[in-house]
Every structure is written in structure tokens, then in C-alpha cells.
């Protein structure tokens, strides 16, 4: 996903530049809409309409039968009330917050450390950095099932390593204490490449002279990082973190495949709860599931708009 953001930025820079140029003649602008017809039809049919149906789902009393017959009763905000009064609601919110913040904190710190390290010129630095992309390119089900087996209680290599060091074994995926930590670990692993790539490209835009000047002034590596690198990287860091929020809130596959949000609700987030309600049982609760989804989209949009605002503010400088 991360790629998209970089492209967005370019396109917006491009749009800004283009507005300064001479405006094309009027008929060409009308003609422009002809080329936009496919994407507009597409956005209405495959974005706006599903979103509308999702809102509708959350306001009606849907069952599998009424889905087919189309006569689900309108019940206003009852689905939302049901969701708010559910004991799972508080845990889902808390787990979503923990999952998001802890994942991002580690992804960012590790990504930044690796970006600084691999930004130095040494043999193979470019190749090794490229290899770091692997976790990000793998299908999530591949990463999630691999981590399931790594963290398996009896036969997992992680527990074998703990045992070798004389540490007690951990029921990563089957104990309520550890399940959230287990999915966070897997998610950090998947998110490091994104942070590494974006932060590294940010580092590359810091002029070498600044580092040389810092070295001439006698600053050691840590002081250079603290007083030169990190401050100059602040705009890129903000973008990385805000986008990280948007993308981490969405995470579903990893948690669902590793723990299904369990045991109990110990690793349930808003995404997995929504799925659980709508598709995870033999008796689907589409209405409440859609209601949880709509709560999630509001949270995601808040961070999304923050990101776009920040981006525009940066670009205007």
C-alpha cells in the first residue's frame, strides 16, 4: 500500500505545478471529462455504492433470508446501540489502540534505525536493503501462516529457542495474555519495510554537506543523528506515522489468520470484530458487523484527513 502514497504526492505536486501553467482551452477541458467517464462510473458503482450499502446494512435488521428477499426492517440506530452495549466493544477499541500504537512505535523506531544504517555506503548495502522488502511483498496469508507455525506452542521454533536459553515456553496464540502480543510481533515484521523504504528515501534527500559539516564540528554519530538527521527527517517521519495509522487500523488478515481474534476476544480489533459479526459464525449479524465497520471508517478517515492536511501544509512551504 505504501507505494500509493508516494505516487499521490507526486501527482499532487504535479497538479500544483500544472495549475500555474497556462490553462488548456475550454473544449479540451470538457473533452477531459470524456476520459474520466470510466473512472467516475467505476468509483460510483464500486466505491460509493458499496459504502452506501454498508451504511444501509447498519441501519436495518438484516438476516440471510431478508438479504435475498430484500425486506429487512429499518431499525435506525439499534445496531449501533447493540454494538456499544456489547462487552466486546471496549476490548475491541482498546486492542485496536494497543495494536496500532505499539505496532507503529516499533515499526518506526526499527525502520528508522535500519534506514540510517543502510544509508551508509558499504558493500551490498543496496542489495540488502532491497531484500528487506520481502516481508512487505509476500501475501499476508503467507506471512500470517508462517508466523502461526513459528509461534506454535509445541513445535514452534520460537519456543524451541526460548527453551534452549532456559526460558519458559509461551502459548503465543492460545493464551489470552499473549495472543495480542503475538499478532503485534507479526505485524511489526510486516510493517518494517514500509518504514525503512520511506525513511530511507527521506534520508537520501538530506544533503551530504550537512553530515560533513557535522563531522567537521566534531559531532559523533549519535549527536549527528540527534541534532541533524532526526530534525531534518521530521516531515517525512510525520507522513510515515500518519499513513502508518491509516494502514494499521485496516489490518485484518494477519490477526484473523493467526488467532481469529481469540482466544475469547483477547486479540479482537474493530476489523476482526466486524468480520466476526458478519461472516465469522453460522448465524451472521450483518447489521452490527456493518455498524462496527462504519465506526472503523470514521476513525480511519480522521487520521487520513490529518495526513492529507499535513501533506498539503508541507507542500505549501
Amino acid at each position, binding site marked *: *500500500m505504501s507505494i500509493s502514497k508516494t505516487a499521490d504526492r507526486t501527482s499532487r505536486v504535479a497538479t500544483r505545478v500544472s495549475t500555474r501553467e497556462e490553462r488548456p482551452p475550454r473544449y479540451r477541458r470538457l473533452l477531459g471529462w470524456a476520459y474520466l467517464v470510466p473512472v467516475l462510473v467505476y468509483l460510483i458503482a464500486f466505491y460509493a455504492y458499496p459504502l452506501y450499502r454498508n451504511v444501509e446494512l447498519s441501519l436495518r435488521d438484516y438476516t440471510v433470508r431478508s438479504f435475498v428477499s430484500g425486506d429487512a426492517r429499518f431499525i435506525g440506530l439499534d445496531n449501533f446501540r447493540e454494538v456499544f452495549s456489547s462487552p466486546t466493544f471496549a476490548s475491541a477499541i482498546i486492542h485496536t489502540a494497543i495494536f496500532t500504537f505499539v505496532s507503529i512505535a516499533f515499526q518506526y523506531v526499527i525502520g528508522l534505525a535500519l534506514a540510517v544504517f543502510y544509508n551508509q555506503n558499504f558493500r551490498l548495502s543496496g542489495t540488502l536493503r532491497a531484500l528487506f522488502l520481502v516481508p512487505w511483498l509476500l501475501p499476508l496469508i503467507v506471512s500470517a501462516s508462517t508466523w502461526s507455525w513459528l509461534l506454535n506452542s509445541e513445535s514452534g521454533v520460537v519456543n524451541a529457542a526460548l527453551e534452549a536459553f532456559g526460558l519458559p515456553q509461551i502459548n503465543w496464540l492460545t493464551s489470552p495474555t499473549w495472543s495480542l502480543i503475538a499478532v503485534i510481533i507479526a505485524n511489526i515484521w510486516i510493517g518494517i519495510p514500509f518504514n525503512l523504504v520511506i525513511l530511507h528515501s527521506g534520508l537520501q534527500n538530506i544533503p551530504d554537506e550537512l553530515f560533513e559539516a557535522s563531522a567537521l564540528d566534531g559531532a559523533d554519530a549519535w549527536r549527528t543523528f540527534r541534532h541533524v538527521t532526526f530534525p531534518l527527517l521530521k516531515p517525512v517521519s510525520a507522513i510515515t506515522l500518519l499513513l502508518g495509522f491509516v494502514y494499521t487500523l485496516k489490518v485484518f488478515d494477519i490477526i484473523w489468520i493467526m488467532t481469529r481474534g481469540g482466544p475469547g476476544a483477547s486479540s479482537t480489533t474493530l476489523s476482526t470484530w466486524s468480520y466476526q459479526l458478519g461472516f465469522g459464525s453460522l448465524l451472521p449479524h450483518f447489521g452490527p458487523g456493518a455498524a462496527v465497520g462504519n465506526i472503523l471508517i470514521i476513525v480511519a478517515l480522521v487520521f487520513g484527513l490529518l495526513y492529507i492536511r499535513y501533506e498539503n501544509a508541507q507542500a505549501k512551504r
Partner: protein
Amino acid sequence: MNRALKTVVGVVLTAVMLFPVYWMFNVSLTGTSDMRRDPPYLFPLHPTFTGYQAVLRDQMPYLGTSLAIGLGTVVLTLLVAAPAGYSLAKLRPLGGQPLTFILLIAQMIPGIIMAMGFYAIFLSAGIINTWWGLVIADSTLAVPFAVLIFTAFMSGIPDELISAAKIDGAGSWRTFLHIVLPISRNPIVTVSLFAFLWAWSDFIFASTLNSGGTMQPITLGIYKYIGNNNQEWNSIMATAVVASIPAAFLLVVAQRYVAAGVTAGAVKD
């Protein structure tokens, strides 16, 4: 730290990061009887191919379906996105900027919400459990990204080139088809690769919109494996290895397109 030492540290860090990937390989070659060995073999000293035989036996239809869904998604994405990119970059209609904003927002919508909306629509329309329904759903992962990539690239095409085509009597459609598209090879490749990869990797749409179909993608193949025979992790991991081939291809053969996508505008402004 001298440079040789840095290389050593760099290799070690990469090895730690990629250990899970190595482990996937290792387990895929482990025999069923050694699967529960404690401690596990760290190297595939006695490699067996039972896992890969299981892939050949069980998973080929799933892989075929994923291939079809991936290619279908690429075609649909290119058809919708390339003209839009041309318009936003070169024809610049009024209202183009709000559209760019909408595309940015569209990328941020969580998949579960789209899945639920599509489920309602597909059920009423009677296209639930079809592979081509997944082409539609999966393309939503790629279309906003694709439009933005095309717009970014095509903005860089010199206006003189377009004007020259016009002087030669080419209409906007011919200019698009014969001038703009041929130079846009790089964004076409980048968009195609990522549209394919995202469709290939999709799990949430597959599990909601095609859970009972006769043609299911490889992500569901793996998911069912995990559910059914969780004793045979060599088969599961062998399938995971095979399902990772497009990603490996992207990294080895098309790395410069990946880099082009990632760093297209990354933090350059």
C-alpha cells in the same frame, strides 16, 4: 566501524529479518514425521518433497484461479485508470483536483467495509461466489493507486509532444493511443505488477465474496489447508512458498519497477 564490518552487520540484520521466510522454506521441505520434532531441525538435512507433491495434487486449480483473477484485475485496472491519468495530467478538466482528493481517501477505506458492501451487492445481483466478481472487488485495491501513478507520470510528458501530434492532425484519442500510451510503458508495468500482486494476495474479498464458489483463489486454498489438516505444515508451507512466487518475481526481475513505484515521488518535494 569500518566498511567490511558494516557489511557483516548488514548481512546479519537481513538474515534475522528474513528468518521467517527461510523457515517457511525449511518447513516446506521437512517430512511429516519430523514436523513435531523438538527441537526442530534448523536445516533441511533430509529434504522431502511430500509438501510440494501435495501442492501439485490439491492446489493447482486454486493457483489457476488466482492467475485468472490477477490478470483480469490488471486489465480492468488499466482500462479504467490509464485514460483517467491522461485526462488529469494533460487535459486537466475542471473538478480534477477534487477527484484526486477522492482517490486519496478511497485508498484509506478499510477492506472489511468494502467487503461487506460488496457482499450485499453481489448477493442481490446473484454474482456471489464467482471468480470474476473477485476481479471487480480486487480492482478496487489498485484503481486509485493506478490513477495517481498514471497522472504523476503523464504530467511529465512534455506538452510540446502533445501539441506536435495535434499539428500533425491527431485527435486526442489518437494522441492518447499512439503517443501517450507507448511512452507510458513504465507506469503501465508498475501498475500491472502491483494490481496483479494485490489481487493475488487478497484474502478478505475472497473469503467473504467467494467462500462457497467452485473457483477459489490460492489464498483460500492455503486458508482451507490450515483449517483442515493442521498436522501437515509441510504442505501448508509448500503452498505458501508457491504462492510467494509473484512476490519473488517482482523483487528479482522487476525490482526497478518496484523502486520506481516506491520512490516515484517519495519525499522529494
